[in-house]
């Protein structure tokens, strides 16, 4: 069953804490993405990864970093979380050069 798995589904963190969001895919897709979704703003691209250790900033990378050490795994790290990083975070993957995108179920992060 081809899928993108995000962990955890829900997360509450205090301001200043570090946050690790994890994403895995079982399709050997080369390209992976992290988006955040806020009401009325659609999905905003945080980072894109073209393959292992080949990452590029999206439209809103400030306050985030990523790690991709294996093709099937892409992590989003928030160092010292801020309240304005409260959002729903989606991971997605695609095979480069195709129109086939698969999204995870999202992680709902609350920073208090």
């Amino acid at each position: 069953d081809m899928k993108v798995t995000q962990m955890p589904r829900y997360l509450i963190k205090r301001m200043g804490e570090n946050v690790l969001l994890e994403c895995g895919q079982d399709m050997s897709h080369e390209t992976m993405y992290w988006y955040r979704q806020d009401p009325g703003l659609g999905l905003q691209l945080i980072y894109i990864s073209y393959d292992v250790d080949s990452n590029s900033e999206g439209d809103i990378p400030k306050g985030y970093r990523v790690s991709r050490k294996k093709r099937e795994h892409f992590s989003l790290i928030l160092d010292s979380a801020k309240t304005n990083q409260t959002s729903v975070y989606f991971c997605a993957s695609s095979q480069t050069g195709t129109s086939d995108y698969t999204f995870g179920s999202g992680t709902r992060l609350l920073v208090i």
Partner: protein
Amino acid sequence: GQQVQQSPASLVLQEGENAELQCNFSSTATQLQWFYQRPGGSLVSLLYNPSGTKHTGRLTSTTVTKERRSSLHISSSQITDSGTYFCAMEQGGSAKLIFGEGTKLTVSS
């Protein structure tokens, strides 16, 4: 950067009515796609349509590349069609998929 604008922001229909969703983009789009998101859910791809007209089930998308616009027509809407519809396009061959702000569709009985 490239922009994707969708209209209307929200749409309320009676079951059985047709829906017309619009998407305008700021430059030549590649990988133009329509996605659907159930309330509180994930996104699924509905139609990949970089140009011309594509059909699947009750959905029809028409993309006029030269005019930088795409539309999604939903015929005979059903309550289960309720949710948010997103238009997305690839940014200049970078594989960066950029989304519009979405159209929230509500279908009632």
